[in-house]
């Protein structure tokens, strides 16, 4: 299964963290730090697989992709195929690109919720449930439509008018 999905900026700031195995919240920062150390230590144009037994437990590996200012990192165990995981990162990035129209780091910074929605459409409980980017984009759009339908006002910040009408 996939143990964790991380997006970390080249400035060592986490942009997306999702753990599929329980990791104590107070340990998250250390995990990000040690992963980032591995990432920053490995030069470009080398293989993208790193054994991370010491960080995530025996048999775990990490695959990453360095795109612009971001590292996309998937941590997985022996039940996943290395190259398939690399492809999955590609799919994930493709989806982001399609959902945000030329994705950049700022999109990822300001769209915490949508990022999770996209990821949840791809991976559930560490299992990949959808690998087609079109299908994921379609589902994400469908969810947005549904939520808009359900309530058009809920995301508007609490306003004076709301206060008065209550």
């Amino acid at each position, binding site marked *: *299964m996939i143990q964790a999905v991380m997006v970390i900026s080249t400035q060592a700031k986490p942009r997306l963290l999702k753990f599929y195995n329980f990791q104590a919240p107070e340990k998250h920062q250390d995990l990000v730090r040690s992963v980032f150390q591995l990432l920053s230590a490995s030069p470009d144009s080398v293989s993208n*697989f790193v054994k991370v037994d010491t960080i995530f437990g025996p048999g775990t590996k990490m695959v990453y992709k360095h795109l612009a200012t971001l590292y996309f990192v998937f941590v997985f165990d*022996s039940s996943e195929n290395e*190259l398939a995981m690399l492809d999955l990162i590609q799919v994930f990035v493709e989806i982001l690109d399609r959902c945000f129209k030329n994705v950049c780091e700022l999109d990822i910074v300001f769209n915490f919720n949508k990022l999770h929605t996209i990821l949840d459409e791809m991976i559930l409980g560490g299992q990949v449930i959808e690998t087609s980017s079109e299908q994921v984009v379609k589902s994400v759009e469908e969810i947005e439509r549904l939520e808009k339908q359900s309530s058009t006002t809920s995301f508007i910040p*609490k306003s004076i008018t709301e206060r008065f009408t209550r």
Partner: protein
Amino acid sequence: MASTPPAPAVAPSLVDTLFQRSLNDLVKSLRADPSAAGEAAAVARALSEIHREIRAPDAATKSVALQKLAYLSSLHFAPVGSHPLAFAAIELLASPHLPHKHLAYLAASLSLHPASLSLLPLATHQLHKDLSPSAGAAHQQHVSALAFQLLASPAATAAPDLPVHLAHDLVQHLARGSPRAIAAAARVIAASPSAAVPVLFKPLAACLASPDPRASTAAAAAFCDLSAPPADATPFLPLAPDLYNLLTTSRSNWALIKVLKVFARLAPLEPRLAARIVDPVCQLLTRSSAMSLTFECIRTVLTALPAHDAAVRLAIGKAKEFIAAADDPNLRYLGLLALGMLGPAYASTVNDCRDAIAKSLGDADTNIRQEALHLIMGMVNENNVVDIAGMLISHVAKSDPEFANDILGAVLAACGHNVYEMVVDFDWYVSLLADMARTLHCAQGDEIGRQLVDVGLRVQDARPELVRSARTLLIDPALLGNHFLFPVLSAAAWISGEYVDLTKDPVELVEALLQPRTSLLPISVRAVYIHAVFKVITWCFSVYVGRLGDSGMAMDVMFDRLAPDQTVSLDSNVALGSGEEQDIGASTVRKDPFSHESILYMIDLIQTTVGPLINCNEVEVQERAHNLIGFVHLVREIQELNKRKVADGDEPSRLKELVKTMRTVFCQELGPVSVNAQMKVAPPDGLILNENLVELAGMVSEDDTTPSTSIFFYPCSRHSVDTRDEPAVSIGSSSLSEHRKRHGLFYLQTGKTEDEPNDYPQANDSLPSSSNNSVINDDKSKTAELVFAGKKSTATKSRPKVVKLDTEDFLSSVMPSANVPKEDPLSGALRDVLLGSDAKALSSQRASDINLEGMLNKTSSNESSSHLIENLGSYPASRSSRTTSKQQNDDKEKGTNPRESDGKEPRKHRSSGRSGHRQGKHKHREKSSTQPDTIPQASVIQDFLL
């Protein structure tokens, strides 16, 4: 759920209360000041704000606050007490507003953790509601997707009652083949097998055969996850037919990868499975264009089907293509990784790719280099160790320091493994060790030094070469500056002192040991150097004095052997360039190291260089220097000897006596000491080790306040000791053994010499000596000697005798057996379900025992099991001894076709191709056997597959 907001400690400003900041506002404020302090302040402010807002009665405010809190805790590691967040999240789960609900589920799945499990029961009802079908289809699908998300989140899978309550809700979703439900079910089963397996396993298994490719793919992934290594894969054997079907029909690479992974785990458990899947796997391997699938096929073949030569060759061919992929380091890395998966038994197959692998040693990528090194070390054997080590050492010079040391470490470990079992030619190995020490970045001095001494102790025939190598190390003044080499130099000094009688030029050796740059050495090494000089000088005196006494034939023979290699020593003499020796007249000194002049020269050298060290403030050096100078003073008369010649017989004989005594001090040969040599020391008469000394306890404990440094008799220590030792052992002996453990050194006095074999056989003797010494346990080298004895004429060098102690053998054989497979709850639960009524008679513990036994038997003795099956076929009477009804059913089926049961040997399967119609027939049989209580553990699978 509205909780009244308590009065805030500091009244917030009007703007703060009127306008709530959204998540975007929060992100912007965090980015406004990117410094750590600024960010911390912004987070603190946001947190206090959130704590106020999250108690707001209206859902909109609450949800935004929750969103901000989830963001902060996830990406800014804000130390959020889990409680307020979890509670608000669970509160909002019930919101009819879809966006609120979505937020709540997200926050809950991100932040719930076992500490907040007490809140999870509050969510159970909501999850139940959201999972049950109602309302509009699209809306409902979204809601249940959210519920699955929470159900599969790490915290929820740790909650024990959640699966119990919600497993039944999952079943209907499984029946529809929803990939989400399948993934969630897998997590739930993994989290609490006992509760979830009875309900969820069968619907999940049914999904494997689902016509919907998404469902079957998800199910394959789920089973791949559930059968992952810590778990036992045996309970999944009955799924083999469905998986096989998927393997041959599925078009999804993802599904195929997962199916291959499951098969790779099942194949070792069921020998006939390998023969069955090898063809489809090879087809996939040749046909597939997807690299991921190709790689998975390679992995499956190399890990699970290593006995199928054609498949292995095909897979290795593909792996070679991977290694040759010039533009993709990932493929190169994975290619090497794949070759490494083929176990050590097949190392020769990997040998074909040696050139490709050796090329990878120079790759720019660290991972690839490491993997290549690992592979190369895996294929080392006694025939190619010389080639490989030479090739590797040549790579050391080209590599960066870190990898160079990895290579050196690997070579040392491989050659030193199991008392140098791979090394045949020790002369080569010793010079290799010396070469390694001289490589540029060598940081393995400790291990090289240890092995040099160890080889000296164990292999008598290697000593001349050892002494030669030690000399070259010692005379090189450049090496003295490298602190990594100190242990090597120390070993070299010890060797040249200990085996001084093999040295060619003791004068040069003394010069090397006393050269000025030795002041750079650490104290411990200097002490070894001085002691080595002591040994050398003792030996020189003894030879010199002996020659004075009888200048007969024996001495001449000795000098023939010891005739100095003049060219070498003269060269090094120039290199050393010591001004002092020019005065003495080097040419005369060089001619005969035991002439009067050279002895005097050495005495002078010692007095000038070691003399000042008498005042050294390091005790080790000071003591050794004192010893040496003292000895030189004692034999001072030697100077006069030359003048008086054989004037009076009294003086020289006294001197001779003295020198001889000193020489005998060092004559005793040192050998390796067995780890449990202690046990061979017989207790002296009258010492009763088992005597109970407990009555002494009161006496001792009165004034003994420091028990840790001496033997202790406290009664309280009895418990701790007794649990470890056998209960009959009294406290006295146990504390003695404690003491013995701590001060083991002092116990080794008598009996040690018995353990050390002094009678080394000559390796180049045509007759291998048959030493009956019980300590030497060296059958292997003995047989090697026998084999090689005949080939002596063809210039093959026989492997010299290597002293090996029985305990070393014992230790190495004990170690691998430490990893006993352990039972996991999942397989237990699965077995309960799959075995049906039969298994219920057995307790789960019992079942696990059987499983362990079964696993062991299967792996160790396939032959015996197949033999058993054959017996069943040929003697029907013996079958009736098996009493379970299932087995009888099974036998009835078999009985219709007795030849079929004959053909149960795996080998026969491979040779006879399976025809299509037979496969169809079995598929039919598979269908019937998926009924609940006709699935015994192993025997039925035969039916599925044949």
